[in-house]
């Protein structure tokens, strides 16, 4: 009656074995490491980069403990933090600004464990220290900007179509055009309808004037917002790369929010500054005449730029003298995509300008054929020439093609910079949580200690009160903890301090199942059942109770996960997983132990319970 079929033991054995392997990495601790990742996502991460990194570290005289390559970059492990910092400095100098060199901590577990996906638990910011930001994108501003663009576009369009209007104004997200008579308005209406299907047009009349109200339709509004958020995400990613954070998290939350998590970052002031920075793009003409004169270029580099010009460096380090007058700013660029030149098949970037930008660009290119124009990116008061192509012909229609890039990768980077150099809409930090590293370590210790002593107290009580059955219950509870930690490691769920509290609480409540079973067995014994029958009856009758009571707690856990945020969510994850593992360990595993110890005893006269 108290025997399990072989397969049940096998299932338990496999579960325990898996739990053992996936819990293991948590015991190895971490080693200092340096992580090298290219700033541009298009840069190749390959064996060549790995060799270069290895060679650099070697020439710096630092002994590396292992170099590994993954999809994102190269990681090198070191014996201590001194070697780590020395290597970081050497790498930063050798690799230049194209790579992010970040200090990191890597799990010290052996490689075979990592290769089966066994990683230590993923610690939340409150345990490892770091910064959490929730940023809100100012969507009304993004829509304002879009309306402003359309205002310019419509003005150009009406002028091209020779439709007469008396005025065009904008109030927030609504553009309104004034006409002298209804016929002109109809004409305008048709022209706008044909050119911009995404606009919603509404006619009105005020006194003598005929009005046409223009707003974005719902879909266009949604698309504008989505694009704004996407562009802001890209921009943020680029900026965070610059911070040299090992494992940043940059995620969209809801329709207008972005979560940024920077583990290990302590300098929050710098982080805030970089995240909130505004970058701008400018298109200016290169001063070709003064560029002819090598002396003036030299003088400019020395700080004596000729009148009306400024000197900036191209990305390959070549100085360029550009005029101070700004032709266009990045606000006029609506899109930039990498591609190829139709005729030469060279790598190129295709840029779309809005109506006003197109008009200005047409005039400037007509007057400057054969000359170079420079595209400048201004960030943090630092100006860089992204590219300085030669104007071949007059360019109209707002579609610009820039060639002169070395490779499709570079074209991709330039397009990205043009698109993402600036934020589409301003962002504001609406939530911030910073935890210092010492507090993080304290939190781990506090959480670990309370769980440990709580567990010990429960174990002591159970063994004293229920004797052998108590020992079995404590073993089952330990199994539960192993399974829970293994599951958390396997899923790489974020472990927070409330999460550790959740582990402790789950363990405190999980013993409930064993108490229910033990009390039931005692009761059946009192009712005169034989020990073997009492064991079987105790487990069977207790199961219903355990199931019902756990499912109600599970409902609470799921709702918490669904509606909770941050720390609450970490607690909920542990609570839900803990209920599942506790049902398995308290019922199946403890029963297996009972069956193994009593199941084959022929004449069991007394139970130690």
């Amino acid at each position, binding site marked *: 009656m108290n025997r399990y079929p072989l397969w049940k033991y096998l299932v338990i054995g496999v579960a325990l074995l898996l739990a053992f392997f996936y819990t293991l990495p948590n015991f190895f601790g971490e080693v200092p490491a340096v992580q090298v990742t290219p700033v541009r996502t298009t840069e190749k991460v390959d064996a060549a980069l790995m060799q270069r990194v290895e060679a650099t570290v070697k020439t710096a005289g630092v002994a590396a403990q292992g170099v590994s390559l993954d999809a994102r970059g190269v990681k090198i492990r070191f014996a201590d933090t001194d070697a780590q910092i020395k290597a970081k400095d050497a790498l930063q100098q050798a690799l230049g600004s194209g790579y992010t060199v970040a200090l990191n901590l890597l799990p010290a577990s052996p490689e075979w464990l990592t290769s089966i996906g066994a990683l230590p638990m993923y610690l939340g910011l409150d345990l490892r220290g770091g910064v959490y930001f929730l940023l809100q994108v100012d969507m009304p501003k993004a829509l304002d900007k879009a309306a402003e663009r359309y205002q310019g576009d419509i003005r150009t369009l009406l002028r091209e179509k020779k439709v007469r209007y008396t005025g065009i104004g904008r109030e927030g997200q609504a553009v309104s055009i004034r006409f002298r008579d209804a016929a002109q308005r109809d004409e305008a209406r048709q022209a706008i309808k044909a050119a911009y299907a995404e606009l919603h047009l509404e006619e009105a009349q005020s006194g003598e004037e005929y009005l046409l109200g223009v707003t974005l339709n719902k879909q266009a509004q949604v698309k504008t917002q989505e694009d704004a958020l996407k562009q802001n995400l890209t921009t943020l990613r680029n900026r965070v790369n610059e911070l040299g954070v090992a494992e940043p998290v940059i995620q969209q939350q809801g329709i207008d929010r972005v979560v940024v998590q920077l583990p290990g970052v302590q300098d929050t002031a710098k982080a805030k500054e970089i995240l*909130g920075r505004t970058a701008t793009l400018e298109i200016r003409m290169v001063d070709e005449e003064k560029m002819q004169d090598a002396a003036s270029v030299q003088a400019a580099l020395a700080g004596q730029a000729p009148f009306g010009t400024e000197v900036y460096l191209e990305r390959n380090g070549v100085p360029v003298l550009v005029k101070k007058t700004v032709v266009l700013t990045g606000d006029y660029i609506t899109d930039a995509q990498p591609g190829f030149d139709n005729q030469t098949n060279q790598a190129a970037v295709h840029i779309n300008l809005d109506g006003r930008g197109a008009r200005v660009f047409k005039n400037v290119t007509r007057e400057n054929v054969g000359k170079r124009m420079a595209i400048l990116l201004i960030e943090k008061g630092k100006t860089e020439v992204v590219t300085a192509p030669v104007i071949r012909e007059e360019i109209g229609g707002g579609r610009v093609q820039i060639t002169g890039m070395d490779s499709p990768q570079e074209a991709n980077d330039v397009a990205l910079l043009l698109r993402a150099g600036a934020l589409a809409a301003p962002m504001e930090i609406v939530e*911030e949580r910073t935890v210092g590293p010492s*507090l993080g370590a304290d939190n781990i210790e506090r959480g670990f200690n309370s769980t440990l002593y709580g567990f010990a107290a429960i174990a002591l009580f159970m063994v004293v*009160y229920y004797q052998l059955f108590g020992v079995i219950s404590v073993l089952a509870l330990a199994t539960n903890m192993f399974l829970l930690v293994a599951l958390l490691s396997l899923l790489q769920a974020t472990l927070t*301090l409330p999460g550790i509290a959740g582990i*402790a609480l789950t363990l405190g409540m999980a013993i409930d199942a064993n108490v229910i079973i033990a*009390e039931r067995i005692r009761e059946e014994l009192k009712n005169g059942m034989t020990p073997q029958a009492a064991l079987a009856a105790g487990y069977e009758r207790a199961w219903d109770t355990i199931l019902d009571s756990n499912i109600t707690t599970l409902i609470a856990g799921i709702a918490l996960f669904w509606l909770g945020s941050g720390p*609450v969510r970490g607690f909920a994850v542990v609570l839900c997983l803990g209920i599942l593992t506790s049902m398995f360990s308290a019922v199946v595993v403890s029963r297996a132990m009972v069956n193994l110890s009593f199941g084959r005893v022929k004449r069991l006269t007394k139970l130690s319970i």
Partner: protein
Amino acid sequence: MLELIRVKKDIPFMRFARSTIFFSVACIIAAIALLATKGLNLGVDFTGGTVMEIGYPRAADIPAIRGTLASAGYGDAQVQNFGTSREVLVRLPVKPGVTSAQLSEQVMAVLKQADASTELRRVEFVGPQVGQELLEDGSLALVVVSIGIVLYLALRFEWRMAVGAIFATAHDIFIVLGVWSLFQWEFSLTVLAAILAILGYSVNDTVVVFDRIRENFKKTRMTNVAAIMDNAKTATLSRTIITSGTTQLMVTAMLLLGGEVLYGFALCLTIGIIVGTYSSVLVASPITMWLGVSREDFIKPVKTESGAMV
């Protein structure tokens, strides 16, 4: 065999039903009155604002810190010790028009100027809008959990039992919130998580008793509902006490060793466990009985119980 409770006869819990329910209702009314008049001391998570935890190498001089902040224009800052004498908590309310993200940097700069050994341990800034959302989500979670539990219990047991269980649970939540309001302890996100955990715990406790009542209804031929309930409650009493005890052992460990962040969580759970244990034995079943539950309600469905195994 060690036994905590050794009883030969069933304890007549139901005889006290009127007084226990009266006591509970009085507590609930008092709690609601407290919540209505004093309200909850909502933490920065819900009201918005900035909290900074600052560490000093030696015991911090609180009045000096207050003075430093006041002279720098942060007169509305609350400064208090946190955990140990070397740690200080500074609270700053939301200031309209001031980019709050910069606020903590400025305050830190002021404090660093006064004492260079100051260490910033933690900053929490929550915008007023986010705080409002967190509060709404939290309240919604409470409602959703309650509905989910009522539905499950009504399905698995009987609607009268579901009502009894949810009444007992609401009783626990109100009393915990009432205590929180009475002492004006800070109500943070972690405390909210504890409240929801109590919800789960309290129902769990009640379900174990109800499960036994259901079993008794099916097995015995007794018709006296009160006697059936007393028998079930006596049979599960030692389990109820032991489980509350083990859970409390864990919670006590958190209370003593968990540090300041877990303190509120553990304190909330402690009250919840005490009240929850009381209510699952003495509050839930009288309600169910008065709603008119009887043996017939459990005999009709001929479904086998083991069919519900997962």
